């Protein structure tokens, strides 16, 4: 019985084709020719497949690794967003690499900056992450800090990297070391992958500064020259595919790192310094159901009502934090119902917090009558600069750890998550 990787001789009615068998593709037998090209042969045309040489899986070489004296030790925790992989040209498969030896082989520059240990926590798409995974990750960070790591790099899928960064900022405190999340917008099997530079710059930042706390490290522009260190609670993926998708929102970035000379340029000095503190993990209740509702024209009260069984709701309002609640003519009768639904929800004990779908800028519910009515309905958030994503995380964490003080704690800057309206890194 032939299997992928076997060298085969395939007979059809017209010819005999030699090559390496690849995984099937529905109705097609796929073969890699000697030229390296793959081609699909209609299954119906195939008369016979003869195995000429069975596939011998290559034995993984375990070379081991040593630590250089004088260099800080960092732990790399993999959750996904494979930053290192190799291509098996024989089968065409892309294989993720996780071990310290493999990482150092892929990023030799690292060995001049840091010593590396690494562990595989998960290898998952980041959109599949749940509160449970934040809890797992928080515990792993605690473990690594106990083991004496000078810093931790977390590899992560880019889609929800900013959610995890926010979660860890709330959950593991006080952090005595830096925890830097990195991802790759271009898969690491490519020569053009941004993974290497992101990891190396993160390591350089850890090695050269006394920064402690959660941050993300990704490309600052489309060029391979500078990475930006973004505060974990002011981070957002702002482009579906560009290397510089991650931007700092409602705050200033901590630093930039130049990949050529590994020079770190600190942009602010109001960061928490390294210490010998022992972090405590304050988890997020995995059973919490928090909704995110995007306000829009032509809304209906039902959209609010469907959250009656939820534990909390984040509304991404328009402008300064608005939802259509003004009945101004015959056509807007629904809006009174929306306001009623909001009030009803908060009265039931479901905290409702307002953010802005503009992403940047303050939520101010005092400027217009709309906002004041929304406040009267019990909605929180007035006077805060916070993104919808971070608000979602903060609400979940508050519901778990400060259930009775949500209103007061919402406007408190607990881990630097409330912005200050300083110019952000994104050019307008």
């Amino acid at each position, binding site marked *: 019985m032939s299997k992928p990787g076997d060298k085969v001789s395939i007979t059809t009615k017209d010819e005999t084709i030699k090559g390496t068998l690849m995984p099937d593709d529905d109705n097609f037998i796929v073969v890699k020719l000697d030229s390296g*090209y793959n081609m*699909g042969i*209609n299954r119906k045309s195939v008369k016979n497949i003869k195995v000429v040489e069975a596939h011998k899986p290559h034995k993984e070489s375990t070379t081991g690794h040593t630590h250089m004296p004088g260099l800080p030790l960092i732990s790399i925790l993999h959750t996904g967003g494979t930053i290192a992989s190799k291509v*098996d040209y024989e089968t065409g498969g892309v294989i993720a690499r996780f071990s310290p030896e493999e990482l150092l082989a892929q990023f030799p520059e690292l060995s001049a900056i840091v010593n590396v240990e690494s562990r595989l926590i998960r290898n998952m798409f980041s959109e599949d992450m749940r509160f449970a995974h934040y809890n797992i990750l928080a515990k792993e960070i605690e473990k690594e800090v106990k083991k004496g790591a000078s810093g931790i790099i977390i590899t992560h899928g880019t889609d929800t990297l900013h959610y995890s960064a926010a979660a860890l900022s709330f959950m593991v405190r006080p952090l005595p070391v830096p925890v830097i999340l990195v991802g790759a917008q271009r898969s690491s099997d490519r020569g053009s992958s941004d993974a290497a530079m992101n990891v190396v710059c993160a390591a350089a930042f850890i090695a050269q500064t006394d920064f402690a706390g959660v941050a993300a490290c990704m490309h600052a522009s489309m060029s391979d020259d500078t990475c930006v260190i973004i505060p974990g609670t002011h981070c957002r993926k702002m482009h579906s595919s560009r290397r510089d998708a991650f931007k700092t929102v409602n705050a200033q970035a901590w630093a930039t790192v130049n990949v050529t000379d590994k020079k770190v340029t600190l942009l602010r000095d109001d960061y928490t310094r390294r210490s010998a503190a022992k972090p405590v993990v304050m988890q997020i209740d995995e059973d919490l159901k928090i909704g995110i509702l995007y306000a829009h024209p032509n809304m209906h009260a039902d959209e609010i009502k469907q959250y009656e069984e939820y534990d909390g709701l984040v509304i991404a309002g328009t402008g300064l934090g608005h939802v259509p609640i003004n009945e101004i003519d015959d056509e807007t009768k629904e809006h009174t119902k929306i306001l009623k639904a909001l009030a009803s929800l908060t009265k039931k004990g479901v905290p409702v917090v307002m953010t802005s779908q503009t992403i940047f800028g303050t939520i101010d519910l005092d400027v217009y009558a709309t906002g004041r009515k929304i406040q009267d309905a019990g909605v929180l958030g007035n006077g805060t600069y916070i993104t919808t994503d971070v608000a979602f995380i903060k609400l979940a964490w508050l519901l778990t750890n400060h259930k009775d003080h949500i209103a007061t704690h919402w406007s408190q800057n607990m881990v630097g998550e409330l912005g200050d309206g300083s110019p952000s890194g994104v050019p307008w």
Partner: protein
Amino acid sequence: MTQHDYAKLGLKCGLEIHQQLEGRKLFSHCATTIRDDEPEGTIVRRLRAVAGEEGHVDVAAIGEMRKERSFVYEYYNNGTSLVELDEAPPVPLNHDALMATLQLSKLVQATPVDQAHVMRKTVIDGSNTSGFQRTALIARNGMLRSSSGDITIPTICLEEDAARIIGQTADVVTYRLDRLGIPLIEIATGPEIKHPDQALDVAQRLGMLLRSTGKVKRGLGTIRQDLNVSIAGGQRVEIKGAQELKMLPTLVQFEVDRQLALLQIAKDLKERKSATHGFKDVTSAFQNASGIIGTVIKQGGVVLGLRLCDATGLLGREVQQGRRFGTELSDAAKIASGVKGIIHSDEQLSKYNIGDGENNAIRSTLGCGQGDAFVLVAAPLAQAEKALTAVAERYNMAFKGVPKEVRKANIDGTTSFLRPMPGAARMYPETDIPTLTITKEILERIVLPERIDERSARYVKLGLAKDLADLAAGAEEHPEFEDFLRKFTALKPAYLAEVFFTSGRTIKRQFNIDITPTTEDFEVLFSSLQANLVPKEAVLDILKERKPVMELIAKYKSLSDDDLDKALDEIITKNPGKPYNALIGIAMGTLRGKAPGQKVNERLKKKLGQ
């Protein structure tokens, strides 16, 4: 040129043609326009070698990474997209390009694959922003009949063109992204070409078939041909970038010369038991250096020397017209390190201001005995070391004969080393693009285009001379020409072709004027000619005016018979006593373009009673 017995030498020669297609790019929505205006932005990138199985990195990729270069990419806000910048995933494969490839495949009786898979072919010289080229095998087992036998066409592929080099320094290569992603049809022949002239014939035929699809880009650089050449005992060498088709035979010939020379050098090296020895610093040999060497030393550089035992005479041996074995070593040094060149002891050292004193000092430091040769390089230390390491490597390769490598075609038909031949298996699936099933429905939609040579034969039957027929058949405007054939049946096909296709050339040659007539202009012109409104003699004058023909018909209207008679009468009256010969001259001069010459002649003769 030496005439070789190519059969005896075991010449194997194959051709690889890359033809650009018109329309949209292969994996983005951009047009396929080459830009020469200032780019609107640039980015800087570094590419990394990707480990294959067992951490083994592709040979050519190591070579590239060793150079520690960065790449600058020039882009346009309209005309290049995030796909070309490697900042967005590719869009689905351009279906028109696939159809054109299938058409070409049908023309050479190649069999399309049942299901095509787009692959990533690792390329990290910077010419692809993603670090790979997207390429797919579309058809196999085609055949071309040539004047000297059948040539197999094992594969036809559809792939994206690379970015083009704009500039290069030691550390930075600048590319422009306009060309990146233009669809290319790649046709690879088998190694059945047996004679240099046959290479030209095959290339011309394939070019004609490609143009027959009507889907190809035209102009300089839109079609590239690469040659693969080997002789018995030699190695397959790929020659890239042949600029002109007519140079193909020379390139083959000179490569055969080179391989023969290298095989002889290998023999000689082994016989002499030659060897290399580690390089040493010989800067001290140059006390008051002038010229190139002097400048390098003054700027803090060094002169390093490499001893090659018993190699005297070998370095200066010619391997190709105007190129020596030493030139091959120099190529290796240049490519590896970016130095401008090397100096070797078989050269006229005085041209580098190296006198006997310096020569002796060098030979002494290097420990050269009689018969030993040396190679020098003057450059900053790190660069010089890179250069001589490459020279030593290349020298040691020479013991085995001909290295398998990729070379660049030079204008004179010689070749220069470009890079090592890449390893075979460096392709893996492009998982961003779904597989393409080439269904029966798709195949049924392929219309076999009329081949240009068959069209030309058709035109010859209509009365065009062969050259004119070839010109018309190969022209992009042949459909318009065939429209004219249908509409203006009173005019001879050959005449229509001559006016439509050659008037521009003729007017340029005779009057140094460039004309740009539209199809409408020709319509009006032919219509007027057919209706005898204007005489044929007026055609060039009309076109030369560079105004819409519609506005000029009145001006060039043929004289009516009555008016013609009146004009002739006037001429006769004004020139009493002059003989016919004189009168016809005056008449032709005055009436040229106003009446057909034959008519003028006839009527004048009648009037004179002849």
